């Protein structure tokens, strides 16, 4: 039921793990539903002084789809500006994986929500520091 791409990604997930001293952390999902993601980001600026995601790592408790979407999202947004990263469509994530079973589409939403929360966390922290 999973595409080959999902399975490959699951087998060799990228950007999985933790960042020490992250600039932002987004914790999403709940244990009850069986999907929990913690998204860690490191932010820096590019030449045009835009904030970009310099590094991203995700920790995931969940099914094959959850782990694969975490990996794909992280791979896609790494290096992107925060602005662009937040515009990623959940469909793009699914497409990157050659599709997800309908029942698993929420996983891509979840990973996006995790990223959003991480960025929020980063901005909150920054606002405080400023």
């Amino acid at each position, binding site marked *: *039921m999973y595409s080959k791409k999902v*399975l490959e990604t*699951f*087998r060799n*997930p990228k950007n*999985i*793990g933790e960042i020490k001293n992250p600039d932002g952390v987004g*914790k999403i999902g709940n*244990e*009850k*539903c*069986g999907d*929990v*993601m*913690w998204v860690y980001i490191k932010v820096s600026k590019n030449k045009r002084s835009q904030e970009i995601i310099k590094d991203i790592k995700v*920790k*995931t*408790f*969940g*099914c*094959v789809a*959850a*782990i694969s979407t975490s990996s794909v999202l992280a791979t896609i947004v790494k290096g992107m500006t925060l602005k662009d990263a937040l515009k990623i469509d959940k469909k793009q994530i699914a497409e990157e994986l050659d599709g997800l*079973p309908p*029942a*698993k589409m*929420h996983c891509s939403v979840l990973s996006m929500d995790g990223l959003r929360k991480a960025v929020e966390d980063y901005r909150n922290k920054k606002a405080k520091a400023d």
Partner: protein
Amino acid sequence: MKHVYLDHAATTPLDKRVLGAMKPYFSKKFGNAGSLHLFGQEAREAVEKARESIAKAINAKPEEIVFTSGGTESDNIALQGVMRANKGKGKGLVTSVFEHPAVLRTAEKLEKEGFEASYLPVTKQGFVELQEIKKFLKKETILASVMHANNEIGTIQPIEEIGKLCREKGILFHSDAVQTVGKERIDVEKMNIDLLSASAHKFYGPKGIGFLYAKQGTKIYPLMHGGGHENGLRSGTENVPGIVGMEKALEIAVKEMDEENEKLKKLRNKLIDGCLEIKNSWLNGVREPRLAANAALGFDFVEGESMILMLSDKGIAASTGSACSTKSLEPSHVLRAIGLPHVKCHGSLRFTLGRATTEKDIDYVLETLPGIVKRLREISPLGGK
């Protein structure tokens, strides 16, 4: 790559001896058992011989055996057929919260038709309680349906006693024995069973064939209408090779049962013990009375599907519990029923051993699994390691 199949509760390989018994009926004795001529008579004879032998294996009469396409159909005929045919008596159906979907979804369908279903709770250990059942059985109850052994956690229910309670109250009793036929002794007389479901592919027989035992005189409506086969209870050209194969498979399974179970229990216990050495793990359900082949485990902080696929990559076939095609997001209703919190339900892993399982297979699993659990725990945010 080494292949270790430990999902025998989902399905089993066809026994070579069974295929041998089926072979003549594919292309040589291939007649339609409803035909009058020599080819038909040959087929009819094979079907009736199989019926006799299967009946004997569960201490029933040949005319009490109805051939179906499998466990799901047997469950559906039993529940839909009996409830509808006995509407006059009342509208109550009693079953348990941890039945197979073939029973639960059918019970829900019957509720929509106006019947009233009530669902027995189960204990943390994985059993329905006689005390509870007594409370559930009402004058209005037409049928009670309790599975013989649970397909996820393998606990064996006190069928004989439940049957006795039903008999005393004049309530029909059905047992989904899909997981026990060919694995545990079944005597429908002694166990007070009025209806019993079985599926051949669970005991090394072919897929696509099963049977329903229905005690003589039980009023049942058919699900399918047509040529009037199986005494009008199940129309459709008889699956002769399937029926012959099921008979042979049951014969073998019954003959080898004790020896087989002894072997399985040893291996199973070794597997359980080995798994429990992994920290933050547990066994679902108690060890006894439990199907000899069932090891239903749980691991904190990791999710079942991911374990299944990582094991699969190492050639090991296991399951999270059931092999249903609706990949529902809900955690196992069985594990919820025995009181496991949601998050622990997600970390379940079921190994079910079989005839070909060797000690080496178990060793291989015990070498492989810890690394997988460790890896998944590393990428999991839970557990605070």
